[in-house]
C-alpha cells in the first residue's frame, strides 16, 4: 500500500460515509430554518455554524455530498457506458470509416465544454440536477472513448491478440476477452479522475444556477448563497469549499494511488 492510496481511500470513504449516513441521520434537518440562530460561527451546537436562515451547515454539507456524488457517479457511468464501447469499437476497426466517425464525433464533443452543454440544455429544458448530469456525462464520453481507444490500439499490435485471431476469435470477442481486462486498470484510474472532475463541474454548474435547484442542497449553491455574505460570515464560503477540495483531493489521490498499485509493470517488479 502506498501513501496516496491510504490518504485517498480515507478521504473518499469519509465523504461517501457522510453521504450515506445523511439518509438516516443528520444533526438537524437540513431544511429546518431557525432564524434566531442564524449566521452562527462553528460552535458545539452547530459544528459548522449556521447560514442566514439558521440552517445547520454540517447537515447541509452531509446532504450536499449526496448530490455531488450522485451527479458525478451517474455522469461517469454515462461516460464509461457509452465511451468505452465506442473506444473499443474504434480500435477494433482502426482506420475504417467507423473509427473515423467515432473520433471526429469525439473531437466535436470536445468543442463543447460541459458548461456550454449545460447552457444549451437549460435554455431549452430548464435547470436541474438531471441537466447537470447529462451535461457532464456527455463531456465524459469522448474522454473515455479516447483513453480506451488509445490503450486498445497498442494492445491490438501485440502478438497475443494475433494469437487470439489465429484461434479464430472475432474482434468483438477479442475486445471483450483480451482488450477490456487489459484496459480495466486504466479505466478505473481515469474513472476516479473523471469522478473528481465531475464533482468540481457539478459545483460550478450549481453555483451559476444550472445544476441542482432548491430545495436539493448542493455545495455549489451553498457557495452561491454565501457570496454576498463572505465579508461578515466567511465560514459560509469556507466550509463548502473545503468540503469540495477534500473530496476532489481524496479522489485524485485515490486515482494516483490506484495507478501505482495496479500498474502491471510495477507489480512484476515486485514479484
Amino acid at each position, binding site marked *: 500500500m502506498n501513501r496516496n492510496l491510504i490518504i485517498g481511500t480515507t478521504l473518499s470513504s469519509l465523504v461517501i460515509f457522510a453521504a450515506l449516513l445523511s439518509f438516516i441521520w443528520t444533526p438537524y434537518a437540513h431544511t429546518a430554518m431557525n432564524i434566531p440562530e442564524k449566521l452562527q460561527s462553528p460552535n458545539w451546537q452547530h459544528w459548522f455554524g449556521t447560514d442566514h436562515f439558521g440552517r445547520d451547515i454540517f447537515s447541509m454539507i452531509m446532504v450536499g455530498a449526496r448530490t455531488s456524488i450522485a451527479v458525478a457517479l451517474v455522469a461517469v457511468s454515462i461516460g464509461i457506458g457509452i465511451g468505452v464501447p465506442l473506444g473499443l469499437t474504434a480500435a477494433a476497426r482502426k482506420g475504417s470509416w467507423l473509427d473515423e466517425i467515432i473520433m471526429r464525433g469525439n473531437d466535436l464533443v470536445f468543442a463543447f465544454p460541459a458548461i456550454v452543454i449545460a447552457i444549451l440544455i437549460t435554455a431549452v429544458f430548464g435547470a436541474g440536477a438531471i441537466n447537470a448530469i447529462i451535461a457532464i456525462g456527455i463531456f465524459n464520453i469522448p474522454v473515455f472513448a479516447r483513453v480506451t481507444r488509445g490503450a486498445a490500439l497498442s494492445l491490438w499490435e*501485440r*502478438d497475443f491478440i494475433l494469437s487470439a485471431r*489465429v484461434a479464430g476469435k*472475432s474482434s468483438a470477442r477479442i475486445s471483450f476477452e483480451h482488450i477490456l481486462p487489459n484496459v480495466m486498470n486504466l479505466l478505473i484510474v481515469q474513472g476516479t479522475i473523471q469522478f473528481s472532475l465531475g464533482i468540481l463541474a457539478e459545483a460550478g454548474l450549481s453555483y451559476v444556477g444550472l445544476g441542482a435547484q432548491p430545495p436539493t442542497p448542493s455545495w455549489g449553491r451553498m457557495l452561491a448563497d454565501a457570496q454576498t455574505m463572505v465579508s461578515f460570515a466567511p465560514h459560509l464560503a469556507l466550509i463548502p469549499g473545503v468540503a469540495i477540495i477534500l473530496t476532489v483531493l481524496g479522489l485524485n489521490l485515490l486515482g494516483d494511488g490506484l495507478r501505482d498499485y495496479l500498474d*502491471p509493470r510495477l507489480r512484476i517488479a515486485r*514479484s
Partner: protein
Amino acid sequence: MNLLTITDLNLSIHKSDILRDVSLTVGQGEIVAVTGESGSGKSMTALAVMQLLPDLSTSSGSIQLDGTELTAVSEADMCALRGSAVGMVFQEPMTALNPVKTIGDQVAETILIHKAMPPARAKERAREVLERVGLSADKFPLSRFPHELSGGQRQRVVIAMAIALRPKLLIADEPTTALDVTTQAQILDLLKGLVKEENMGLLMITHDLAVVSDMADRIVVMRRGEIVETGATKHLLAHMQHPYTKMLFAASGHLVNLPTPPEPTPLLKVQNAVRDYQLPRTSLFAKPGHYRAVNDVSFTLHRGERLGLVGESGCGKSTLTRAILGLEPLQGGQIHLDGAPVFSGHSPNLDVRRKMQVVFQDPFGSFNPRHRVDRLITEPFFLLDTPPKGIARKDAIAQALTAVGLHPDDAYKYIHEFSGGQRQRIAIARALIIRPELILFDEAVSALDVSVRAQILDLLAELCTAYDLTYLFISHDLSVVRTVTDRVMVMQAGEIVEQGVTESVFTNPQHPYTKSLIAAAPRLPDLTPTSKEPVQ
C-alpha cells in the same frame, strides 16, 4: 600504453550486484569485443566507462582513460570528456536521434558543446564527418530530419556524432543488432575503417559471436557480471579454456538433425499471392496510393516438410505470414490449405484455421498477462467443435507442457513467472495443443540468447520426430534457417527471388540478392569439432 584500463570494477544497482571485479584494457587502434548473453553486464561495463550509469548505482574500482581516473572526475569534467575523449554508439538507431532536430544540428552539437570550433566551422566539420560515415552532401544535406533516414543511415549519423571530435576511444554498444545483415556488414566495415584511420580504440559490446570473431583483436567473455575468459581473438578461438566460452561458441553454431521428410504431398499452396496496403490519403480528393508488400508469390509446402523463409526487414515476410494465417485478404492470387482457402471474409473458417498455428518472436508480448498458462495454451481449443473438458482438458494441457519440456504444474502460473526461453516453450505448447497440420514460426528464436536458442532448436528437432511437424520457419537469421529447414525461400521486396533445397541454396546461391545476403552474414570461424556436438 593502454588507452583504457578498467581494474577491479564492481557495480551494484539497488543493492543487486551487476559487475564483479571486471578488469580489461583497450589499446590505441585496438578493437576489444565484450561478449556474453543478456544479464552478463556487458552494457553496464560500457556505461560505466561513460559514467552514465543509472541512478542509485554504486561502484568501486578504477577506470583510467588515457591516464585520467574517470571514477574520480567531477560530473562537469566528465561532460567535457564525453564526446571529445570518448564517443559512444548505441543499439537502437531508430530512437537514438532527437526527432525534432536536423541531423546537421545534432552532429554539430557535439562540436559546439565542447566549444571546439566556431559555429560556421562546426557546420563544415559536421559535413565532413557525415561524408566520412558515407552520407553524401547531395543526398543527405545537413537539413535532413532523422525520420527521413533508414535505420542504417541513422546509425551512421550516430557514429558521425560520436567521432566528430576524433575521440581516442569509441564505445559501441550492440551497434548492429537492430540492423539487417547487409547493413550490418557495411556498418562493421565503417567502424573497422575508422579504427584504422584514426587510430582509435574501439570497445565493442555485442552478443553476436560471429561479429566478435570477425571484428575483434581481443575478446572478453562475460557471464553474470564477471569476466570468465579473455584473450587475443585467434588464440582464444583456438584454445578456449572456460566451459562457458565453449558452450557459448558451440551454441552459436548449433546444428540439429531433422528426420527425413516423407514423400511430398502438398499441404499449403500459395499461388500468385498479391497483398497491397493502402497508403494514407495524400489529399482528400486524390485516390489513395498502394504499397505492394507481397508481389506474385507462389510456393507449395508439403506435408512433413520444414520450409524456411528468409529476408531482411520490410521484405514482406510478416505480411505473407498474416496472409497465410488468413488474417488479411489478398488482392490477387490464392492461398489454400489442404484444398480450402485460408481467408474466408469477416468470419474465419474454423475448419481451416484449426489446421494451423503460429509461434511469434516476442516471448513477452505473445501472452495476455492476465491469464494463467492453462488458459493461455488452450486458447486454440476455441477452434474445435467439441473442445475437451474436465480431465481430458487437463490431460491435453499436461501433455502439451510435457512435450515442450515444462512441468504440468506450470499450468497454474502466470506468464511473468517464466523466463524468455520458457515462454517460447509455452508458445510452442499453445501451437501444438490442437495438433495442427502446419505451424508457422515467425522469428520464433530471434529474441533469445544463444544458449536458450540452441535448446529451443533442439526441442524443435525432437518435436519433428515425435509429431511429424510441418512448419514454415520465417527468420532473418540465415544460420538458424540453414539448420532447421529442408527447403528455403529467399524474399526480397515482396518477391520470392530464389527457392530450393536449403543446403544447395546456401552452398550455391543463384540469385545476386541471395549471394549478397550470404556474403554479408558474419560467419563463425571453423572451430574445433566440439562445436558440432549437441548442447547439454
